[in-house]
């Protein structure tokens, strides 16, 4: 297992380098320009100067190498310095990855965004799972029952209705008509009392619902399929022959086996939490990582987009590995070596 993990990690390095280059090249080739969103009143010469000040004057390979150094050496060093409070030599000369739009270090902005993204998108993922697993279990156990039919129907609708529709719909109903929940998410809210806690709950309900609905739709399908696979296995018969109650048979024997593939699917989906939910974040102004990415793309904030997308790529590679390892841990039959 350890060997396997190390090997995979080792293999991840060239993969990530290739990915980083592709990302970099794609974004550099992309015909969008950070000065494109400036007002037209700014003359072209000034734009050119701005572009050079942003470092766009240098050739692509140099920019790539610079970015590599910033991302892989300067940023981690900076993070360590921040964490432990001591400084490596030459800390002053180290440049970090700096955004075109904010002119501030990209990483700081990303870190600032992390909490709300994790809260809202992460919670919706958790809620989605919590809804999906029982639905999937019951749907499979009572295959073709009315519960199964309704569950299938609802999850299909959840899958097919885009969040750019459900979000505004909820806002119109619950913010405008009923006035129950705020339509704008307050990212500065600090939860320090029961009142603010309640406020936090209220502002999270709608975005979490929208996303959880979508997530639950997909995971419940997986859960159902996996349960169906296992319900027809021989060991289920053995468990029944041992005189185990249906509850134990389903919730211990079958569920444990069925969860193995589902847990890996869930693990594979975790990077999407970090990539945020672009549309939902826009609609509710949660302003998490997804919103940061889309703003970056729209504003041609190349360092921001590069860093974010590369981080997602790292997460995807990492969680692919984690999913495999989790599979190995959950399923004693699998031993990687």
């Amino acid at each position: 297992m350890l060997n396997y993990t190390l090997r995979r990690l080792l293999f991840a390095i060239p993969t990530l380098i290739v990915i980083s280059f592709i990302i970099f090249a794609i974004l550099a080739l992309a015909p969008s320009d950070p000065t494109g969103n400036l007002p037209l009143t700014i003359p072209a010469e000034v734009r050119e100067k701005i572009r050079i000040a942003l470092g766009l004057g240098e050739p692509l390979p140099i920019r790539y190498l610079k970015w590599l150094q910033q991302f892989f050496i300067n940023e981690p060093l900076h993070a360590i310095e921040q964490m432990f409070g001591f400084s490596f030599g030459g800390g002053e000369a180290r440049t970090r990855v700096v955004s075109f739009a904010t002119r501030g270090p990209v990483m700081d902005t990303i870190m600032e965004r992390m909490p709300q993204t994790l809260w809202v998108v992460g919670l919706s993922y958790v809620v989605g799972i919590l809804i999906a697993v029982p639905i999937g279990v019951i749907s499979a156990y009572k295959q073709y029952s009315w519960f199964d039919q309704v569950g299938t129907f609802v999850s299909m609708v959840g899958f097919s209705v885009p969040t750019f529709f459900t979000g505004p719909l909820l806002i119109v109903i619950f913010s405008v008509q009923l006035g129950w929940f705020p339509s704008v998410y307050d990212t500065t809210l600090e939860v320090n009392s029961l009142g603010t806690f309640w406020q936090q709950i209220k502002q999270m309900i709608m975005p979490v619902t929208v996303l959880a609905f979508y997530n639950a739709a997909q995971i419940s399908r997986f859960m159902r399929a996996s349960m169906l696979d296992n319900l027809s296995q021989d060991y289920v018969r053995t468990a029944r022959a041992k005189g185990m109650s249906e509850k134990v048979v389903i919730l211990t024997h079958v569920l444990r086996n069925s969860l193995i593939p589902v847990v890996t699917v869930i693990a594979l989906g975790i990077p999407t939490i970090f990539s945020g939910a672009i549309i939902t974040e826009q609609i509710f102004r949660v302003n998490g990582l997804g919103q940061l990415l889309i703003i970056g793309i729209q504003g041609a904030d190349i360092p921001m987009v590069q860093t974010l997308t590369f981080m997602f790529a790292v997460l995807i590679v990492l969680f692919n590995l984690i999913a495999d390892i989790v599979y190995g841990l959950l399923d004693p039959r699998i031993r990687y070596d």
Partner: protein
Amino acid sequence: MTDQAVSTADTTKLGAQRTLWGDVWRQFVQHKGGVAGTIVFMTIVLVVVFGPFIHTVDPQFLDIRNKNLGPTFAHPMGTDNLGRDMFAQILAGGRITLAVGILAMGLSLVLGTLVGVVAGFFKKLDGILMRTTDLFLALPLLPLLLVIIMLFRDPLRQAFGPEMGIFMLIVFVIGITSWMNTARIVRGEVLALKEREFVLAARSIGTKSWTTIWRHIFPNVLSPVMVSATLGIANAIITESALSFLGLGFPSDFPTWGRLLFDGTSFMTVTPIRVVWPGVMISLVVLSINYIGDGVRDALDPRIRGR
């Protein structure tokens, strides 16, 4: 092998000609959801294909003085904020949306199956192809889409005209970014099939690799591919609507259901009916296709087929 009482039922009617697909079809017909899905889907396809011959209003015609109408006799689904007839737009949008869905799915299946089969069958190519697949999975798609569309829009427009060009581009973009799962599934299936004795039998005869793939591997991976196919259409339709949301989709005078839904969302409170139609159409298609997929999967599953 003791409780095979069930499968011996297969030998029942040796007199009648029965094919595997015949069995699948018979099973599929038993699946209520699948049949209902097929009926709904076919109805939508027929309406979308033949509707414009009956409802002959030009979907692009702007009748600004009749904007934001509710359903009327002349405009069964009302009009939008520029006075375009919604029904005509739904019909026109449906043609494009369905065509995109089906073709993009086709492309992603062809790619996915090809990569999956080759990776599964040729051990030497497995590593590189699977790493490529991982790479595609790990690549951030949004910027990639942006770049592909920027880079290839003009040449394609030159070659095939503005509508066909962007259509091909979008089909291509959705196809190229959605084949990875199919490839993984197919590869897994091929790895298992490769160990099956009939493939060994083919080798013992001396059948060449590509012939073996075509004759023995390919027909047997069709069932997972069919299931991915049904899901693929739904996925492509939803991806197209997301592209419209991001402003990367078709030109604005080229309606698709995704775009109609997105445009209608802002008018949700003014003319609610405007969001209902495209929303219902997308949901209906995705639902019906998923039910068809369920039906196909159940029909292809030998365990269930036995029952």
